[in-house]
């Protein structure tokens, strides 16, 4: 809020003293008459998503349990038999430490592309929400936090699977949901940015086949990026997923290098901030038009 606007609001408050009593009561009488604070505005967006999502908890929440199992069984046990070690670790360990964050990416990317588009264009959910005292900014920040939360919770099933099969040490895997949250918000910001350009829902196919799926393979989950040809390596370093994967892996396998850890964290923060900002700026024009 600019300072000039602040002062006009202050003036408005001061001038309320001179208003007729009915009008004064109307403006600030009961405790609900001042608009809800920022935390409540963002929280209620988040809360709406939680409630709607958890309505179908079984069908929504079961696949994330199965997916890592299938992947670990198929790739880890099958392919893993032929690969003795990857970067000095058993392949199953190497793979699981990366898989911990990929589910967070997928869920956030889906939520803030298809999900957001449906809420925006088909179900008109946002039109309803924006008739309540929240701003478009509040709404979009709530979306990102919700996708981050999904990233957090979707990491838990993977965490349970890899720790119950004793693939990774329980104590270290416990940190994975936090990385899941960061991955979730990061891909929420980027997916909202992509959504802001999308006119028909089919365009998301390009996003998923052209960007999200290749990223799964070139961000160090299934094989280390440092083994890629030298001309592809910088590209892999640019990919957003590479960084949370490295954080997750270094924490799980106890190979943390602090400078690299903080560089990755910084990348995630800067990426989320800027794409979040662009996404909010662009989508706001579609929400308030």
């Amino acid at each position, binding site marked *: 809020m600019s300072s000039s606007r602040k002062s006009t609001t202050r003036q408005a408050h001061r001038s309320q003293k001179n208003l007729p009593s009915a009008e004064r009561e109307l403006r600030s009488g009961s405790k*609900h*008459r001042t608009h809800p604070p920022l935390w409540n505005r963002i929280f209620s967006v988040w809360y709406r998503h939680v409630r709607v999502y958890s309505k*179908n908890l079984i069908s929504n929440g079961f696949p994330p349990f199965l997916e890592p199992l299938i992947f670990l069984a198929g790739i880890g046990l099958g392919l893993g038999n032929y690969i003795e070690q990857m970067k000095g670790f058993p392949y199953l360990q190497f793979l699981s430490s990366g898989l911990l964050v990929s589910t967070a990416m997928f869920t956030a990317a889906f939520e803030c592309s298809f999900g957001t588009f449906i809420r925006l264009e088909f179900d*008109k959910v946002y039109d309803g929400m924006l008739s*309540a*005292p929240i701003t478009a900014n509040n709404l979009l920040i709530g979306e990102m936090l919700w996708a981050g939360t999904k990233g957090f919770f979707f990491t838990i099933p993977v965490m349970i699977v890899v720790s119950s099969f004793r693939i990774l040490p329980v104590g270290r895997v416990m940190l994975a949901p936090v990385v899941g949250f960061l991955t979730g918000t990061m891909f929420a910001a980027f997916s909202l940015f992509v959504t802001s350009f999308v006119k028909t829902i089919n365009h998301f196919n390009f996003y998923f086949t052209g960007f999200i799926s290749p990223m799964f393979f070139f961000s160090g989950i299934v094989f280390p990026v440092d083994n890629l040809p030298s001309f592809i390596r910088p590209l892999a370093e640019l990919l957003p997923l590479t960084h949370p994967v490295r954080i997750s892996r270094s924490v799980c396998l106890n190979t943390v290098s602090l400078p690299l850890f903080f560089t990755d964290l910084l990348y995630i923060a800067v990426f989320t901030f800027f794409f979040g900002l662009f996404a909010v700026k662009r989508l706001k024009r579609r929400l308030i*038009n």
Partner: protein
Amino acid sequence: MSEAIIRAKNVNKTYGRVKAVKNLNFEVPPATCFGFLGPNGAGKTTVMKILYGKANPDRTHDTEISVFGYDPRYEELQIKTLSGVVPQEDNLDSELNVIQNLKIFGRFYQITGKTAQQRIDYLLNFMELSEKKKAKIRELSGGMKRRLIIARALLNNPRLLILDEPTTGLDPQVRQLIWDKLRNLKKEGVSILLTTHYMEEAFQLSDSIIIMHKGEKILEGNPRELLKRHIEPHVLEVIDKTSVEKLERFAPDGNFRKEESRERILYYSRSVSLLQKMAEELAAGEYYLRQVNLEDLFLKATGRELNELQ
């Protein structure tokens, strides 16, 4: 009369090349019902959206908008705290049931727990939906959904209710029910702003109406007075153009106004006896003699041709 709660001066809105709203001025006094009438594409919805910050008006220097003293361009939160909005399209959460929809919306206003429960019970009772408390949204009829959205808009006890085509597509029983409820709310001191293309609705509810056409205000005033001032009180509708020949001898008299509308001819006049005389020339099924209504005025003001959005 007390001070206006909504004041709009020189409001303009352009979408690409289309001027959706042109130099609109109006004031809404408290505890009244103010109606916006116009064909689709007249700019009614845009005006509503501008008032609660869902659309930005053009940046013209002399534009002034105030709702309860707040400017929707900068203080949308204050306005939305004091107002309830019923958008044109149903946007309930279909995954949830009736009560859950209201509870989740209550969160936005920080209405929770027991207070929320009491308020929701009251509103469901008020909108005659108590029996549908636990029903899924998919199981509700169109009329029930609309009533539920109105109940949702009333959660925070608004001083202003903004309704965008509240009864479009509903059956007569539900329309009557909604009208009764809106009248009750007005009695309680709630100001109502509504858009509609049902003349009957505007006539029944509004203390004041604005007829809009292509973004412009064409007429404004109390519906009854508008009829008195701007159109003849009686009309003879001749259903088949070909039977008009029988009426030609009345033409030199000229005490009527003739309007053509595709297959029909309408004779508007101040003298009901003249129209009766004309009607005697026609066979029973060929005409319809009646008092004018808002629809006649509306068509006179906005023209009978369809625009590209209709």
